[in-house]
């Protein structure tokens, strides 16, 4: 479980996120949703420590990450896997080397064990036999899957995904979403997904946190999202539903 308390962050006097608290539950897919530019990515980066928040603390299973010393920080980092918006695969390494990279850096496994683990993860994301392909030779959806494989290769306790299905067609989006949810349940991971896609919210939003202009306005399960009573959230859901109906019709 991850708990955040009163996280704020400004860039040059411009407040981007403002006093956000909440918790992300283990073994569930926790979504952070909101319109573009509301600070979702900034919040996610504060949680994983890529951005230092101005105020507030992040707790990974009661360990205070924000105020942790170097050893504690790197210990927690070893338990984190992250999928970036564009996949963020290393261009100079092939698929296999990309997935193996965290193992090389963080563990002392033997070469054979590493290969076996890489192949297991590749098979888990439904991509066997692309080991030797370079990132430039595979499609966007495959990159995301390789990114997921790299994120889970070291058995993380925490998985973060920034817009896992942006730029993908609706079908592939669903496949990626379901893959994330399955992996979360299978390995009992605390998963945090940033998205503004209503399909994802309805599909995998076991817990949802809604951000609006840097403030948290609502959280709960996707079942309750239609009658939240929060006007901004209703607008957000509603505009998206119209789009969804348009797509179907």
């Amino acid at each position, binding site marked *: 479980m991850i708990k955040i308390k009163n996280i704020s962050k400004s860039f040059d006097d411009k407040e981007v996120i403002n006093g956000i608290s909440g918790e992300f539950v283990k073994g569930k897919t926790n979504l952070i949703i909101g319109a573009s530019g509301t600070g979702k990515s900034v919040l996610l*980066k504060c949680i*994983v*420590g*890529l951005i230092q928040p101005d105020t507030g603390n992040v707790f990974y299973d009661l360990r205070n990450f924000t105020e942790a010393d*170097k050893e504690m*920080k*790197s210990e927690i*980092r*070893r338990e*984190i896997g*992250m999928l*970036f*918006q*564009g996949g*963020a*695969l*290393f*261009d100079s390494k092939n698929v296999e080397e990309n997935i193996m*990279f*965290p193992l090389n*850096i*963080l563990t002392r496994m033997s070469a054979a064990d590493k290969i076996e683990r890489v192949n297991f993860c590749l098979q888990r994301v439904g991509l066997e036999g692309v080991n030797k392909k370079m990132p430039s030779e595979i499609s966007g959806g495959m990159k995301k899957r390789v990114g997921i494989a790299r994120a889970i290769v070291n058995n993380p306790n925490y998985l973060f995904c920034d817009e896992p299905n942006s730029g993908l067609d609706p079908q592939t989006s669903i496949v990626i979403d379901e893959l994330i949810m399955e992996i979360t349940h299978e390995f009992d991971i605390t998963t945090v997904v940033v998205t503004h896609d209503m399909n994802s919210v309805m599909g995998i939003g076991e817990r949802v946190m809604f951000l609006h202009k840097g403030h948290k306005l609502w959280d709960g399960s996707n079942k309750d999202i239609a009658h939240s009573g929060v006007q901004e959230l209703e607008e957000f859901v509603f505009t998206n539903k119209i789009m969804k109906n348009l797509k179907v019709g």
Partner: protein
Amino acid sequence: MKGFGRYIIFLGSLFVRRETFMTYYKLTMEECINIGVKSILLFVLVSSFMGGVTTLQTGANLVSPFVPRFIISNVVREMTILELAPTIMAIIYAGKVGSSMSGGLGTMRITEQIDALEVMGINAASYLVLPKIVASLMMYPLLVIISGICALLGGYLVGTLTEILTPTEYVYGIRYSFNEFFISFALIKSFVFAFLIASISSFKGYFTKGGALEVGIASTQAVTASIIAILLADYFLAYLLL
């Protein structure tokens, strides 16, 4: 000035939270191949031509019968060792290696590859940049030595084939009143330039913000800033050491 301060902080950050020695060793070797071995051909080409052209032009300008012909190769030697090999080649090196370092790091920045390294708990600056600087310090002086030799050979070929001077004269001029310190000076210069180019280009690339357009801008800035730094350093080193 703010930029200079950030540059110094950046250099400091390369030496904290490092990985194991083996990791750096492997990365450094890869970089040596990338920036050293793959630059040899360009350096050989450019320096041979520069040696040849310098010989031709010096020969064309020294028409007085009172000046012995071997002075031509003597002039070629002085120019090559002091200025052409270390300094002019540094500008070419900045254009070839500096821009690719900055472009590579800039692309890694905007595609979040640097963030991915940081999330894994790696000091990305140190992991990516230190091997480049070390490889540059190892390779550039070697490239300077190679281009010095090539320039003198190029001068020899052009000088003797066009019969500006005889092989004996050329070799005599090369050996005439030779000051070994100039070689040390050229090597000192090449270490300084290697460091400046690699660190400035990495610095520019590492802090790229935005998209593909900014990566291009960062590369251009890296080359411009490197060249200015080279020229300033060239001036100060000559002032201090000669």
